[in-house]
């Protein structure tokens, strides 16, 4: 994978999330996770090791621009990365239904990690907002991932090697 393209993607995804979030959230507080879509894109296409490291890196940078604890999104997005990597061989990477399904499950996994952290360490978060955010993210996934798939050439993903489960 071309790491320069990766870092540009991370920069743009986090910049868009930070800049747009206030204006695209719903009245109930649900907001899409644009950064997660970048994680899913990397995890869907990159070889296993690079995908997992990439997911962790995106989460770590996200932690630097939030008031939450350092490591929370690194953990959450790594879990999402692990899930998507394990499903790489089973799904069609460019199909919109795949994007929606992976987006939904990924958002639920990330949201669940944040929710559990809120229950254990506080402050708590709303389950309904988490579910709403997951649906919102999943709804945007076919569009965002579809566009990113068209640009996958810039990332020069190498052919995936068969590997054991993580």
């Amino acid at each position: 994978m071309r790491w320069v393209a990766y870092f540009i993607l991370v920069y743009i995804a986090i910049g868009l999330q930070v800049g747009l979030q206030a204006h695209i959230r719903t009245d109930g507080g649900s907001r899409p996770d644009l950064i997660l879509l970048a994680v899913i894109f990397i995890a869907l296409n990159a070889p296993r090791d690079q995908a997992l490291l990439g997911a962790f890196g995106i989460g770590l940078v996200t932690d630097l621009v939030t008031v939450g604890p350092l490591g929370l999104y690194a953990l959450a997005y790594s879990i999402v990365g692990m899930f998507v990597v394990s499903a790489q061989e089973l799904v069609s990477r460019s199909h919109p239904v795949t994007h929606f399904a992976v987006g939904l499950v990924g958002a639920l996994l990330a949201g669940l990690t944040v929710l559990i952290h809120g229950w254990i360490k506080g402050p708590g978060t709303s389950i309904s907002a988490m579910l709403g955010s997951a649906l919102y993210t999943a709804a945007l996934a076919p569009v965002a991932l579809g566009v990113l798939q068209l640009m996958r050439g810039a990332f020069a993903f190498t052919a995936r090697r068969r590997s054991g489960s993580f």
Partner: protein
Amino acid sequence: MRFTEVFTGLLLLSLISAFFLPAELTKSARNIQAVFYPVARPAGAVGAAFAKRFADADVPDNRKLTDIRMENDQLRQMVSQLTAELLELQQLNADRQMVGDLRQYCTPVRVVGTDSGKRESLALLGGTGQGIRSGQPVLALKGLVGKVHSAGVGGSQVMLVTDREFRAIGEFRRFERNAQSGEARYVATGATPPVVKGAGEDGLMTITNVPLKETAAGKNDMPDIEPVKVGDVVVLNDDEWPYARGRWLGHVESIEPNRSAPLFAQITVRPALNLAALREVQVMTRTPDDAAATAGSVLTPQQ
């Protein structure tokens, strides 16, 4: 070392940092907000343009135009009267008192955007280089925005008053006009000092420690106390925020019986402005004590 072992180690480190380490340990290393400004700012401007085009109007003001004009006139008179009283006190008192707007103690800072996760916070373009430090109050046109959560060389993060971790003691107030004399004044409503807590994702605040009987939604058997009503202003009145006391937190949006404690009210407070959409805030980087130390005289916190 195999990649699996490295990745497992990274996951464990994340788990320990997120679930076990105190957040204060990692605050100083986490401020790179300014880096994302070139993307966040234009994206925010586009988002704001679309939101303005398609969103509903701001909180409707159903008052008659004549009432608004009359209230404005009353407020101008009140400001004029208070200014005169303030000048008189200054002459009587040997010590200098805090005058003017708190803005003289504030540094204007551009907002990069909001929290990258699910919390209620703002990323600021300014950091320690502009004198911003953790814990400083952050103000905007109509009131309190929050407090600085962390500050570094690359930017700072502000925890909003609507974040679930925010807590402060407030006071209910209502602008009233005496029907006979026409005199306008702010009166305190309720008796129990409300503890204002951020509600989280929906951008609101809640108060759950005020007895229902002190509100208009309950049976008011306390004739000396003006019940809290929808529309009342909630202002900051917390000893931990001595210099921002009196700043607006928001308006009471709804009052209902608390389901888990029926004798208490569940009061929802809406911030006075859309905090997440702010483009610039005022960070109180100096206090009147700092100014006094520089000027060589003693000042007291605002009452």
